[in-house]
C-alpha cells in the first residue's frame, strides 16, 4: 500500500479502536468490519497502478501497484471489497483488496487482456483478451481459469444483460457486437456496428450502449430483440459512457469524446437520441463514471493525466484531481 500522509493506516487504526474489540476482534468478527468509504478508482495505464480518490473530498488517499504492466480496465465487486484490473502488456488480471489497498493476486488470462467485467452475481470475472480473440472465465474466489469462449477478432468491450442471460462483446476486427448465451457459452447473434467498437455499458433500463471509437457515433441495443435501437453522431473518437441527471432532466447519457476534448450530453431515449449539450473538459477524455445519484461525473483524461469532477446540475467542472499517467478507466464504489 502506498499512501499519502499515511491516511489509510490512520483510518485502519481508528477503525480498530472504534470497534472496541481490539485488533483480534476486528479480524475475526466479520460484522465488526466497517463499511468502506465511497471511493473512486482510476486505472493509470502508463504507471501500472490504480489511484484511489475519496469520492466526497476528491483527495487522493492512495496509489496501488498493480504488480503488472499497462493497467487498463477495472471492475469492482458490488460490496466494493475487491477490484479486478486488466493489464494489457502482461496479459494478466490483478486482484486488489480495496480495504488494504494492495494487489493480492495476479492471474494470467491471455495475451493483451483488455477489459474485465464481473458477472451479475460477482462469482466470475470475464476477461476479453484481444490478442487471443477469446474471453477467459475467471473464478472470482479461487482465481482459477474455468474456461474460454472464442468470440472472434479483437474483443474490446464486455457487458452483461440485467437478467444475466446474455453477454455482449464488441469485436473491433469484425465491427460487430457478439451476443453470447451465458447458459451455453455459444454466440447466438452478431450485431453489425461501426469501426472500432469499444466500450459497452448497460443503462438502468437494461439497454446496451456502445461507442464506435473509430468513427463518430454511439449506438444503443434493445435487449429484448438484440437489435440496434438507435445511433447518434457525437464527435470523433467517442470513448466511454455514463448516465446521470441534470436537475429534472434525465436520465442523460454522458459520452467522453476524445477527438473534441468534450463530454457530449445525450438525451438517453433511443427513439429520440440527440446531443443536448457539450461540456468542455481536459485533453483526451476517456474513462467516465457517475455516482449512484447521477449528480457527479468523474472523467479521466488519458493525455491530461487527471480526473475532473463534473457537477451535472450546472455542467461545471468542480474539481481536478491529478492522478497517474494515462488514466484510462474510472470506477466508483457504491
Amino acid at each position, binding site marked *: 500500500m502506498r499512501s499519502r500522509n499515511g491516511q489509510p493506516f490512520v483510518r485502519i487504526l481508528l477503525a480498530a479502536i472504534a470497534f472496541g474489540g481490539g485488533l483480534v476482534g476486528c479480524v475475526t468478527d466479520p460484522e465488526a468490519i466497517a463499511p468502506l468509504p465511497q471511493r473512486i478508482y482510476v486505472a493509470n495505464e502508463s504507471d501500472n497502478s490504480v489511484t484511489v480518490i475519496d469520492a466526497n473530498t476528491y483527495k487522493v488517499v492512495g496509489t496501488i*501497484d498493480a*504488480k503488472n504492466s499497462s493497467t487498463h480496465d477495472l471492475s469492482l465487486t458490488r460490496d466494493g471489497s475487491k477490484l479486478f484490473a486488466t493489464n494489457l502488456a502482461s496479459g494478466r488480471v490483478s486482484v486488489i483488496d480495496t480495504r488494504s489497498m494492495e494487489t*493480492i493476486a495476479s492471474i*494470467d488470462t491471455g495475451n493483451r487482456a483488455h477489459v474485465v467485467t464481473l458477472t451479475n452475481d460477482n462469482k466470475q470475472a470475464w476477461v476479453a483478451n484481444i490478442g487471443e480473440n477469446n474471453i477467459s472465465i475467471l473464478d472470482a474466489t479461487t482465481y482459477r*481459469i474455468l*474456461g*474460454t469462449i*472464442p468470440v472472434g477478432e479483437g474483443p474490446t468491450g464486455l457487458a452483461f444483460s440485467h437478467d444475466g442471460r446474455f453477454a455482449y462483446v464488441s469485436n473491433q476486427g469484425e465491427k460487430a457486437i457478439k451476443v453470447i448465451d451465458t*447458459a451455453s457459452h*455459444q454466440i447466438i447473434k452478431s450485431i453489425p456496428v461501426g469501426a472500432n467498437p469499444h466500450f459497452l455499458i448497460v443503462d438502468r433500463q437494461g439497454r446496451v450502449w456502445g461507442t464506435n471509437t473509430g468513427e463518430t457515433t454511439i449506438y444503443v441495443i434493445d435487449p429484448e430483440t438484440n437489435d440496434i435501437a438507435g445511433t447518434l453522431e457525437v464527435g470523433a473518437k467517442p470513448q466511454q459512457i455514463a448516465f446521470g441527471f441534470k436537475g429534472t432532466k434525465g436520465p442523460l447519457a454522458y459520452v467522453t469524446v476524445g477527438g473534441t476534448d468534450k463530454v457530449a450530453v445525450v438525451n438517453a431515449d433511443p427513439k429520440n437520441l440527440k446531443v443536448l449539450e457539450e461540456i468542455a473538459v481536459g485533453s483526451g477524455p476517456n474513462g467516465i463514471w457517475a455516482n449512484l445519484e447521477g449528480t457527479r461525473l468523474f472523467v479521466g483524461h488519458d493525455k491530461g493525466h487527471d480526473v475532473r469532477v463534473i457537477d451535472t446540475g450546472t455542467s461545471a467542472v468542480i474539481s481536478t484531481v491529478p492522478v497517474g499517467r494515462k488514466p484510462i478507466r474510472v470506477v466508483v464504489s457504491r
Partner: protein
Amino acid sequence: MTGRMLVGLLLGSVLGAGLPVVTLAASAPAGFAENAIGTLVVVRIDGVQERLQGVGQIPLFEGDVLRTDAGSQAVVKFKEGVKVALNEETSFKVLSRWVKDQPLTRILRMSRGEVWVTTYGEEPVRFEVETPVATAAIEGTEFDLKVQEDGQSVLTVVSGIVKFGTAFGTCPIKPGTISYGVRGKKCTKPAPTDVMKALEWTKAVK
C-alpha cells in the same frame, strides 16, 4: 570482480527490489525438459525457439510454449514436484498464479493434445492444467488429460483425486474413472474406465 560488475550487481539488486512479481517469477526456471522422442520445441516468450531431441536439460520459464508435432513425445519436470509427459501433437503454455501469502500455483494452459501428469516427492503441490473448457487442479495425483479439436476435454484419473472444473461447476474425479469437460456444461459424471489403456502412449517416453 571488477568495479563495473559490482556497480552492475548493486544496481540490479536495487532495481530488482521494485520489479513486479511477475517479472521476478519469470526469471527463475519453472522446470526442465528432460527427454524427447522426436523433437520437443520450446518457444520462449520473445519467440526464440529451442529444441530437445533425446535426453537433455532445457530450462523452462514462465511464458514458454511447449510443442510436440506428429510422431514426437516428451517428458518435462517442474520444480513443484510434477512430472508431465506430452503425447504427439500437444501444446501448452507454462504459466503461474500468484496469490498473496500462498505458494505459487503452477499452471499449464493446453491448447491441444494429451498430457500425462504425476506428482512426486513428499510436499503437496499446487498444480493445474487448463484446457479451453475446463481446469484440472491437483495436489498429489496421477492423471491423463486429452484436449480434442473442439476444446472438449477428457480426464482419466489414475490415482488421487482431481478437481475438474468448468464454468458451470467443479466435480471431484476419483481414481479409475473418466470424465468429460464440454463447453457450456458441467463436467460429466465420472464413469469407470481402463486407466492402463489410457496410459499406453506414455510407455515409450516416460
